């Protein structure tokens, strides 16, 4: 923990976005995480992404569970809404909030422990329901907050800081999401903001559930020799398959990509993601092929990164399926929302 807060002073030529805000105005409170934690870099990427989208801070809802990763919602976009739930229960809160107000942008931040152990039941149903949100896992292979026990994403053979070797097979959130039919699946690395920032922007603008698995090293408990989630190991085994550029609506015309190399995907709000295949054999639109590709690479100890799968044509999005109210519940008159005690009484008597 630092002794001073990040001062408000900023670079004199810091640019502003279309709302007239600087990137610094999208920061939250000072991080209390360990110095050098990957999660802090993800925070910085989210700040950059929200600034770039010219997001109104009060249009953002930040949700999380428990863990170092789950603490990070406090560190970005101070003027937004937030809910810090019980361990592993963030998806329920996200679903409920989403049902109550579909007009806001939902970002859930979780950890590999929060999502793949205690909260896995919640995660799979959030994917199945296609809740309209960005779900970002800060994946470090350990329970950082409780001092570095292996998590369910720890690879076979990886070593703990004190020397034990993990023998249980890992759950890969990317493969999990692909099998469950997620319509936006990506993987990235806290140390690669150039890749991560557009993925976050696209994920926030995607219509439906967007999962980003971010390899985010735990500098204190899992950054040693023998760990497969260290900065060094991640850099060596990092395989970018698809590059994604996020193109906001206003800029659309300005961007010019050479024919054939780029696959533009329009998002429902009019912005676009332009995908560029770094591996020609890879097709991010084919879910089955994507699954096999990732699985094969994992066997070769390679983390495939980039926008792994996107299906913008899918219409199983949460609000469509559940026919949720278009008007936020807080804007519907009370009389319309509440049936009143007389109606309730009538209803109750039917079941007596």
């Amino acid at each position, binding site marked *: *923990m*630092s*002794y*001073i*807060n*990040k*001062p*408000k*002073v*900023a*670079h*004199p*030529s*810091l640019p502003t976005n279309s709302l007239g805000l600087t990137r*610094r105005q999208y920061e939250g409170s000072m991080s209390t995480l*360990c*110095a*050098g*934690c*990957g999660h*802090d*870099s993800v*925070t*910085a990427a989210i700040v950059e992404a929200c600034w770039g989208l010219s997001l109104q801070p009060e249009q953002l809802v930040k949700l999380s569970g428990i863990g170092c990763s789950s603490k990070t919602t406090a560190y970005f976009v101070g003027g937004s809404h937030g809910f810090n739930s019980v361990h592993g229960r963030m998806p329920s809160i996200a679903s409920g909030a989403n049902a109550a107000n579909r007009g806001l942008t939902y970002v859930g931040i979780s950890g590999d422990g929060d999502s793949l152990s205690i909260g896995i039941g919640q995660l799979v149903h959030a994917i199945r329901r296609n809740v309209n949100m960005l779900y970002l896992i800060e994946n470090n292979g350990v329970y950082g907050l409780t001092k570095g026990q292996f998590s369910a994403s720890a690879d076979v053979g990886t070593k703990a800081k004190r020397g034990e070797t993990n023998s249980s097979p890992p759950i890969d959130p990317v493969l999990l999401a692909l099998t469950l039919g997620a319509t936006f699946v990506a993987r990235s690395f*806290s*140390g690669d*903001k150039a890749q991560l920032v557009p993925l976050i922007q696209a994920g926030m603008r995607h219509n439906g559930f967007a999962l980003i698995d971010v390899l985010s*090293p735990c*500098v*204190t408990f899992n*950054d040693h020799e023998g760990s497969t989630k260290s*900065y*060094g190991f991640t*850099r060596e085994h990092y395989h970018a398959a698809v590059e994604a550029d996020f193109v906001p609506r206003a800029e659309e015309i300005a961007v010019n990509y050479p024919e054939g190399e780029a696959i533009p995907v329009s998002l429902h709000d009019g912005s676009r993601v332009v995908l560029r295949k770094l591996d020609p054999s890879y097709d991010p639109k084919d879910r089955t092929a994507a699954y096999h590709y990732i699985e094969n690479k994992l066997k070769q100890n390679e983390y495939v990164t980039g926008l792994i799968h996107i299906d913008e044509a899918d219409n199983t999005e949460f609000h469509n399926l559940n026919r949720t109210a278009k008007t936020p519940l807080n804007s519907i008159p009370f009389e319309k929302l509440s049936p009143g005690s007389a109606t309730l009484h009538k209803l109750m008597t039917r079941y007596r």
Partner: protein
Amino acid sequence: MEPTDTSKPDYFHRVVDCQWACPAHTDVPEYIRLIAQGEFTEAYMVNRESNVFPGILGRVCDRPCEPACRRGRIEEKPVAICRLKRVASDNRDDITALLPKAPREKNGKRIACIGAGPASLTVANDLLPLGYEVTIFEQYGVPGGLMRTNIPAFRLPANVLDEEIGYIVDMGADLKLNTPIKSMKRLLDAQEFDAVFVGSGAPKGKELDLPGRRDTDRIHIGITWLESVAFGHVESVGERVLIIGVGNTAMDCCRSSLRLGAKDVKVMARKPRQFFKASEWELEDAEAEKVDIVINHAPKSFVVEGGRLMGMMFEKLEYDIENGDIKATRSLGDVFFPCDDVILAIGQENAFPWIEKGLGIELDKWNVPKVNATTFQSTRPEVFFGGDAAFGPKNIIWSVEHGHQAAISIHKFCHDEAIEQRMPRGVSLSSRKMGMHELAYKNEYNGVERRLVPHVGLVERFKKINIEVELGFTAEEAALEVQRCLNCDVQTVFAAKLCIECDACIDICPVDCLTIAPNGPEADLRARLTAPATNPSQALYVSAALPQTGRVMVKDEDVCVHCGLCAERCPTAAWDMQKSTIRIPFAIDEEVRACPA
């Protein structure tokens, strides 16, 4: 780019913008921290070591440090470095015990200093402790040079001069007042001295030879007039005064006029304000006293009728200005300004009527001596020049620095050593890290705005000519002002081999100084940084290749606020905050062999 070699003392010295800009390289952040700790005496002594006259300079220094101050690039107004110097001076204890002392045993070398201005006094200050016998010849009855005769007492009180000049004279200088040197030949021929230092200033005020100039006695040369005021020879002036020129001398002339009875004082400027030579703060002080500054008027003639000065004729001008350059000038006709006195404040020149030809001391056609810019030696080996006498009028702090450098040369010269071979500057570093995240200096950025120095009221100050207008900071204001200093001497020091490229430092830096990027040529790198580095006068630090990716850590020094957060957030201590001390060699630091007999 090649990795930056920070072992070269200039690298970290340049980061301390104020100290780099100060001609005498005063250790500004160190004395500001000492003031913050209430160590006024210590702060005074840190100043004195390099600038010799902290009380004087804390009032009237030209302060080249302030425009250079990093704070000015971050929020416009620099730290009030100069006025904090005065805080150290005003609140110091008796320092006599801390002053350097001259040894009882002399080294047998005798030095003559001509003129008792700041340049000569500095030479004496540096050489007396080394056992030299120093004689200072001064034409007037008081020492101090222009500081005494031209800087008005309402800016610089006599007691401040007396005290700080006294420290030097009391070390054992032989100060010969009322002793003008009328012939350099005689002085040199007598062979009484091993070396001669010429610190006689640039005493000649420039003339304005326009019609009518010789027809009245109400046209005065600024510096001569100020001198007469200082010595009490002039005690009044007419009601309407025109000052020609808009430099600092003009500011002293107009403000002095107001104290001698003038009611309507106009400073006449040929060009618009952006071209004024006067310091912004001197202009402000004059304007606060209701001096009228009239722009775009070029003097044409003095209007004298029957031996009486009636006023002056000016040509009114109009300019086309592009990017700070005058592209075209147009005349808008003549304008007459009535007045009772005119004071010419358009510059000063060197004059050495007492240096005869044929002595081997070369002067050019403007009477500027040929002087080596490092050693201050003239073309005659045992004669040295410094202060305004060397390269024309500058200011006090430059005179002091010339004095220091000349003292080194004289010291080496008297010991038959090569005077060009001088001790280089050095730098020493020591970590400010305490434990994991805490730093041993106040690293928190304080957003407080520049404090204003209180002034004596606009009625009270005119009651006597020597009422000091500035009162100096109050304790409360000083306590706030010191917090504005960014501690630029606490340097960010990087160890590339420790970096794991976690980005923590980059994410935390409040002013976007840091970038990890593939290396490239400087111009390309400057454009690719987190915040493009657009100030070419500020260095880029470039590390060696980083272990994991071979990229480099780049730091743009420009607006780093030295908050230490990069070092606080770095998990591997690849960044450290280290206090740099720039070692500036003085005469006393030069190793010389025992005196040749």
